């Protein structure tokens, strides 16, 4: 699993959470029955899925030494192309 893929998973999670927050906010501002049902079912489902995706991305990132790579505190399994020796 490369870093680009991990960042893409995080991006999907962020977009999903944004969508669910917009749904939930709109149901708070305009509590119409249909909107409430959508926010309380689909909105929360998307938010939960996004959180699961984010946790997966963090786990994968830690597994590949992402933390050490970004903090610059140790070797990583897959160094970025720009920093690799020619």
């Amino acid at each position, binding site marked *: 699993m490369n870093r680009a893929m*991990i*960042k893409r998973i*995080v*991006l999907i*999670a*962020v*977009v999903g*959470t*944004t969508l*669910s*927050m*917009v749904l*939930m*906010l709109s*149901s*708070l*501002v305009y*509590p*119409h*029955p*249909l909107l*409430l*049902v959508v*926010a*309380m079912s689909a909105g*929360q489902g998307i*938010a939960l899925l*996004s*959180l699961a995706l*984010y946790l997966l*991305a*963090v786990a994968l*990132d830690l597994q590949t030494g*992402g*933390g050490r790579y*970004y*903090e610059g505190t140790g070797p990583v399994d897959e160094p970025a192309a720009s920093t690799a020796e020619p």
Partner: protein
Amino acid sequence: MFGIQSIQQLLRAIAFFCAAASLLIMVWYLVRRPHLHRTTKVILLFGLGLLPGIVSLTGNISGFAYTMTRPFCGSCHVMGPYLRDAEDPKSTSLAAIHSRSHKFGEDSCYHCHADYQMFGAMTTKMNGMRHLYHYITEYANTGPDGEGGPKIHLYKPFKNDTCMQCHSTQAKMYLETHGDQVDAIRKGDVSCIDCHSDVHPLALSRRAAAKEAK
């Protein structure tokens, strides 16, 4: 403080604040696209986990509480006649009289139409989903107050238990006025609304019109 006068309003305010904060974090990430540093991960954990969790919890509770109120029931246009009658200070219908009682207040629809049993709230909300389905499939494109749509009816006969939550059949005055029908009322053989039929006059008149149209 901040115009908050009830627990429901407080929960809504918390949900609103947390949703706005979560959205801010999401927008920040989408605009800046930072590396997944430890700080970024923690900030995203707040934005993706903690804050949406609080929004779900408080939003569900306040949303559920709002679904019990009369404005929510009246938000579907087919409920217009029912809502207007219940809120009419001059109306003498049972719905209006009960709505004027402080014990019912804004939740007057729910008090009389909710199931009265252990999982009453759950079954009532399941019925609410059924209402929504029928509204979308049968009433969404009907005229003002649902004219032109099928007649509105209860899914099952109105239970005396609902009335008996407040009107005790043991009370002296009740026994005096209901005489030998008390046992039949308690068993459900005689319905309260058979005699006290002026519940929703506008709805009843519409029901009669619907029958004639058939």
